[in-house]
C-alpha cells in the first residue's frame, strides 16, 4: 500500500521501470518456499542479500541480472533513495558483461502445484476492494495519511457449482461463508486476520429479482474485533452465466489485527465493494489472500 502510493507514484521511477527494467511483483512468502524452478531462481537472487534465511520474510526491492546475480537489495521505499539506487545499478549493469552477454532463458522444469494456483474452472473471479470511510484522527504524517485513504484489493474465487447456484438466483451457503471469513475484512493497512467459522455469528444473503441483499455479524470471542455490515448489490445473468456481480458491504467495524494496527478508535465505517473481474487488471489473476497455503480450505 505504502509502496504503491509513494515509490511507485514517482514519475521517474515509473518511467525507469517501464523502459529500463523488467519489473516483477511477487508475494515472496510463496517464492521463498516453493520447490520448483521459480522458487530456485528467486532464492538464488535473494540468498545473495541480507535476508537469506528463507524461514523468515525476504521482502524488499531487489535488482538482479537475468543470470541471477544480485545487484541491489533495499528495503527503504523513499522515492529519492530508490531513484538514486536505480540509476546507480543501471550504470553498473550497463558497464557489466550482463548488458551484452547472452543469457539462457529458464524454463519451468519443476512446478510446485502448491504455489501455482488457478481460479476454479467455470467459476468466477470477483474483485474485492475495501476502504475505511471515516473515523481516523487527522494527521500530517505522510505514511499514516496513505493508510488512512487506502483502497485495498483482493480477489474472491467462486466455484463452478456456486456460479451455477448464482445463475439460478441462489446464494449458496459455502459462498456466503467464504465471503464472510476471507473477504469481509479490513485489509486497508496490511495483512488482516481472517475470521474463523466460529466468529461468524450470522450471515444471511439472498438474491431476489437480481438484487442481492444481506446482513452479517462477525465478532471474535472476546469482542475485540468485529464487523456488522449490510450488503446490497446486483447480479445479472445471461446465457447461463453471471455477467454482472456488483455488491457493496458496509457497516461498523471495530478492532485491528497484528499487521493492521492504526485503526480508528472504536467503531468506524468500513465499505467493501465486490465486482466481477474481466481480466483487464493484472491483479485479476492473483489468488485470494485467504487461499495462501491452503486452497482447499479456502474453497470448501
Amino acid at each position, binding site marked *: 500500500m505504502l509502496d*504503491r502510493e509513494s515509490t511507485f507514484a514517482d514519475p521517474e521511477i515509473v518511467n525507469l521501470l517501464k523502459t529500463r527494467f523488467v*519489473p*516483477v511483483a511477487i508475494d515472496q512468502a510463496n517464492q521463498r518456499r516453493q520447490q520448483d524452478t*521459480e522458487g530456485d531462481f528467486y532464492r538464488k537472487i535473494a540468498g545473495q542479500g541480507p535476508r537469506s534465511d528463507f524461514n523468515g520474510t525476504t521482502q524488499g526491492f531487489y535488482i538482479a541480472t537475468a543470470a541471477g546475480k544480485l545487484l541491489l537489495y533495499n528495503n527503504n521505499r523513499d522515492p529519492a533513495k530508490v531513484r538514486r539506487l*536505480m540509476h546507480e545499478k543501471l550504470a553498473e549493469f550497463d558497464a557489466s558483461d550482463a548488458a551484452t552477454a547472452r543469457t539462457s532463458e529458464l524454463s519451468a522444469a519443476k512446478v510446485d502445484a502448491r504455489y501455482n494456483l488457478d481460479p476454479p474452472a467455470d467459476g468466477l473471479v470477483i474483485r474485492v476492494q475495501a476502504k475505511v470511510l471515516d473515523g481516523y484522527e487527522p494527521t500530517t504524517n505522510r505514511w499514516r495519511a496513505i493508510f488512512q485513504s487506502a483502497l485495498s484489493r483482493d480477489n474472491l474465487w467462486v466455484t463452478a457449482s456456486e456460479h451455477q447456484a448464482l445463475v439460478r438466483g441462489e446464494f449458496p451457503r459455502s459462498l456466503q461463508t467464504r465471503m464472510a471469513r476471507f473477504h469481509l475484512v479490513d485489509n486497508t493497512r496490511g495483512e488482516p486476520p481472517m475470521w474463523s467459522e466460529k466468529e461468524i455469528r450470522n450471515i444471511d444473503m439472498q438474491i431476489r429479482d437480481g438484487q442481492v*441483499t444481506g446482513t452479517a455479524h462477525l465478532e471474535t470471542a472476546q469482542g475485540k474485533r468485529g464487523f456488522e*455490515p449490510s450488503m446490497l448489490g446486483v447480479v445479472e445473468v445471461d446465457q447461463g452465466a453471471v455477467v454482472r456481480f*456488483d455488491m457493496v458491504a458496509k457497516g461498523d467495524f471495530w478492532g485491528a489485527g497484528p499487521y493492521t494496527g492504526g485503526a480508528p478508535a472504536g467503531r468506524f465505517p468500513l465499505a467493501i*465493494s465486490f465486482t466481477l473481474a474481466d481480466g483487464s487488471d493484472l491483479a485479476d489473476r492473483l489468488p485470494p489472500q485467504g487461499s495462501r497455503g491452503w486452497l482447499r480450505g479456502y474453497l470448501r
Partner: protein
Amino acid sequence: MPSQRKPRLGRLPTNLTLTRLLAVSLLAFLAHASESARGGELTMAEFRELHQQLQVPADTPWRTIPWKTAMLDAQRTAAQQAKPIFIWAMDGHPLGCT
C-alpha cells in the same frame, strides 16, 4: 334535510375512509419500495455511489507499470531484452492483498 344530510354525512366517512385507504396504501407502497431498495442501512443510491468510489482508477501510476507476476517470466524477458530485473517482493502480493 335529514335525507340531504344523511347521504352527505354518509359520504364524508366514505371519502375519509377512501382517503385513509389511499394514504395507507401509498405508505405501504413506499415502505415496500423503500425496503426493497435497501439492504439494512444501505440504499440503492448509496450502493451505486460507494461501488463507484471503491474502484481503483486505471491510470493510477503503479498500475501503468507492466508488472510481471512470475520470476521466470521476468527472467526470460530480461534475457531477451538484456535488461536488469526489478523485483518488488512483499508479504502478501503487492498488486493485491492490501
